[in-house]
Structure formats: C-alpha cells, structure tokens
C-alpha cells in the first residue's frame, strides 16, 4: 500500500464512479478516460510496461474516441434522458454491492496476505514477442480473424442503408 498506489487507486476509483453517475454522457466518457489512464499507470506500477502502453493506445486513443463519436451520432449529448437511472436501480445497486462483498470476503479470507511476494521482474518486449509467435500463435491468428470480423461487422452495422429509388 505505497503512496503511488494509493494516489493512482483513488484517481481510478473517482474516475470510475464519475463515469457511472454523471448526467452528461460526454463527461462520463471523459471520466472513463481518466480511469483508463489511472489503470494504465497501475499496470506500469506492476511492471507490465507493454500492457500499460497498449492500454493507453487502444482504450484512450481508440475506444474512448469511438464512444464519443457514437454519443455525438445518437444525440446523447443533448438535454439528456430524464431520469438517468432506470426504474429498478435499487436491485442493480444491491446486486453490485453483493458482488463486491463476496469478492472482498473471498480476498480477505484467503491466505494471500501471508505469502511472501517475489521481487520485481521487468517484462521486456522481446519475450512477449517470442511467446506470441511460438506458444500463443494460435490465439494470435484467431485474434486477427476476430478483429477482421469485428471490423467488417461494425462497418456493415453502421452503414447507411441505400435508398432504392423505384
């Protein structure tokens, strides 16, 4: 529980809570971007440099922009949906609180605290590349196929329908 971890954790949680409770959708996405950046910094704390930079490149640089574009296109940034929470919000919050309670109990009741933590290992990029090309080549190729399918699917879904003139 070092000071950098505490600062980053507070930043991330504030961003997350703001992302889920603000009224204006664009503000929600900007708060989400803050929490993504906080998470990327936490990944760097853990020594996973490659994943941290990929997180910024993919999430902040692409997913957040995509969400913002869709908000613009669906007029979500306008006067806003009154009310912002659906009618059975109590049940949803209770479920989420229950999930957190179970997870926290499982974490604290286990013997994880008593383990001796290994020293910091830096994950260089070359072993990641080797692993991707030798051991994990099948998931890599499937990921390529998946991304291609998602690309084509997203374009088809969002395409303008051609007006057929009689």
């Amino acid at each position, binding site marked *: 529980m070092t000071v950098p971890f505490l600062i980053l954790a507070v930043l991330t949680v504030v961003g997350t809570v703001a992302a889920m409770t603000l009224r204006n959708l*664009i*503000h929600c996405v*900007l708060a989400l971007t803050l929490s993504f950046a906080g998470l990327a910094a936490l990944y760097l704390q853990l020594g996973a440099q*490659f994943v941290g930079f990929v997180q*910024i490149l993919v999430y902040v*640089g*692409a997913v957040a*922009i995509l969400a913002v574009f869709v908000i613009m296109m669906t007029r979500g940034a306008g006067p806003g949906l009154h009310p912002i929470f659906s009618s059975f919000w109590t049940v949803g919050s209770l479920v989420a609180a229950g999930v957190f309670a179970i997870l926290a109990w499982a974490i604290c009741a286990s013997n994880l605290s008593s383990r001796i933590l290994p020293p910091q290992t*830096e994950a260089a990029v*070359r072993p990641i590349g080797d692993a991707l090309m030798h051991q994990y080549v099948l998931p890599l190729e499937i990921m390529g196929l998946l991304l291609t399918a998602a690309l084509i699917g997203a374009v088809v879904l969002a395409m303008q329908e051609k007006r057929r003139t009689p």
Partner: protein
Amino acid sequence: MSEAVSHIDQIFVIFLHWLLGGLPAAARPAVSAIISVIAILVVFALLFAITTVLERKGLGRMQNRYGPNRVGPFGFFQPIADGVKSLTKEDIVPHGADQIVHFLAPVLLVIAAFLAYAVLPIGRNMVLVNLNAGVLYFFAVGSLVELAVFMAGWSSRNKYSLLGAMRAIAQMISYEVPLVLASVVILMAAGSLSTVSIVDMQARYSGVWPHWFLFRPWGFAGFILFMIAATAESNRSPFDLPEGESEIIAGYYIEYSGFKFALFFLGEYLGMFATSAMAITLFLGGWAAPFSFLTWIPSYLWFFAKLMVLIAVFIWIRGTLPRLRMDQLMNFAWQFMLPMTLINIFVAGVWHFMPSGLGRWVLCSVLLIAPCILLIGSLKQQKSTEVRKYRFAD
C-alpha cells in the same frame, strides 16, 4: 575519437553529473529527472519560438513578400512580441461553454506533446528515459492528442468548432495507422522497441557510408510514408483542412483566445517536432553523423541539424502545396498509404531473407515502385473530369 572531442560530445552529461555530485545518493534520480525535464522544456520551447519566426519569414519569401521584419534585426525578435500579445490578450470563454473541459483541453494537448519527448535520444547517452517499449510509448502518447482535440471542439458549444474537431479526429485516426505501420518496418529490422538501441544500430559505418535505415529501399519508402503521415497527424498543410483559415475560420480552436490559443499553437508545433525527431531516430540515424569522417562534430548538433532540415522541409511543403479536400485526404490515407505500408512490411521481409547483393536491391525497389504507381493510378481515376453539363431552367 580523441578525449577532447568525446568530452565536448558528452558535455551536458558531464555537467549533469557534476551538478548531482553535491547531493545525497537518495535524491539523485529525482533531481536528475527534474533537471532533464526542465532542459527539454526550455530547449523545445525555444525551438518553437525560433520556428514560428522562421516559418513566417520562409513562407513570406516563398510568397514573394517579406515576413515580419519590424521587431528586431530582420524580424527575429517577433516571438517575443507574439508572446507578449498572447499573454496580455483578454481570455474570453463563451458563456455556454463547458468551463472545465474548455480549460483542460489545451492543457492535455501540451502535456501529451511534451510527454512524447521522453524517449527521444538527443545525443549520445542523452535520453530522458530508456524505455524498453519506447516507440510504443511514443505512439500511445500521440493518441492522447486526439482526445484533447475533441475536448476543445466539443466544449466550445460552437457548430464550426465541433465540425472542425470531428474532421480533425477523423484525419488523425486515419493517418495514425500508416504512421505506426511505417515505423513497424524499422522495428522489424532493429529487433527492438527501444529508441536508444535503434539509434545505436544505425550509428555504425561500413567504410564512409552510414548504416542509416534511410539507405535501404524499404527504409526510404518508410521514411516518405512516415513523413506524409506525420504531416497529417500534426494538421499541417496540405492536410490542414480542420484548421483551414479560409473555410471554417480556425476549426476547433475558434473560441480560444490569448494564452490558450498560444498553447494550442505550441502543442501543434511540438507535435511536429516530436514526430520529426522520431523520424530522425527511426530512419535518419538519430544523433549519428552522416559520414565516418564527420564524427568529431558533437552528436546533439547533428540531431538538431537534422531536425532543422526536416522543419525546413515542412515549411517548404506548406508554402508549396494546396490544401487537400476531406474526401481526397481520406482516400489518400486508406487507399494509398495503408496498402503501401503493408507492402513495405512485406518488402522488408523479402529483403531480410534474400542474400545480400544487387539482386535484392533491384527486387525490393521494383516491388515498391510498381504498387506505388498502380495505387496512384487508381487514385487518379476517381477524379472524373468530364465536360461540365449546364442545365438551364425551362
């Protein structure tokens, strides 16, 4: 190299070590980082000031007029006048604007622009942080700029500003893909994502000729593609439709005045310097001298000389080429740049597996030039130049 020459080359490193000598060992990394960061801030802000006046005078001479020539000898104190103006101008924020986002947008832009300099090796042993994934860090930070542009455009509550921001983001996203793919070729050749090791690989000489990646067919093509994508990423002419002065006034920074406008300007130029510096690191050998008999000139002087040459090329292109239209811009990115970068990666693979000699030079050059001509031909065919039909009211 003799002792004196290597001392002059490392003079800033020696100076830093001398400054840190009087401190306890615990405080040394933090103070060293702070001093290096202040040095980067000062040097590149100064370079920005010099570039603004050089650009205005250069553009002026290309357009057959003098640039600014009132303030100081030949107008070279113009940045001081510009600075005073932007600091003392009234900071007008529209009443309906989103105050916090409106304030944070230029801040985020300048932060993202300055963060990119952390991995650029400015001289021998003169890099702020030698990250293992340095090139990836550079592109990750570059993608923060798009978010800042959107924040600027949306928070101003102005239709033209939003339109300019959407165009700018579409352009930046489209050209980010060829930018990254053009640098992938170098990563394949160097086998590392660390900028320091990429420059170290290029700092060797075979005879007189350097080992720069520019002097390979795939490196040359990659360099040209990288520079075109870098021009589009920094919204510079001929890709400056989002800030087209004659069309949508100033695009996404219409509603900014005074110092915030100066921050946008600063962020744009810093982005230009950062991508030029990355091009120098990846393709032009970083701080290495072009010929082996010129290595006595200090490494940082070579870096800044190459940077000034690239900035001069940017200014030259701005003064020469007309602006691209939005659909021309997008077609160019997706139908020319992207296939060319992918073919470039393929050609780099072919180069690696062929035996060295004239054969692989010829094959790789042909494999690059033929698709280039074909793709340019297909781009030209989309321009329909028929005789214009006039319709008159009956």
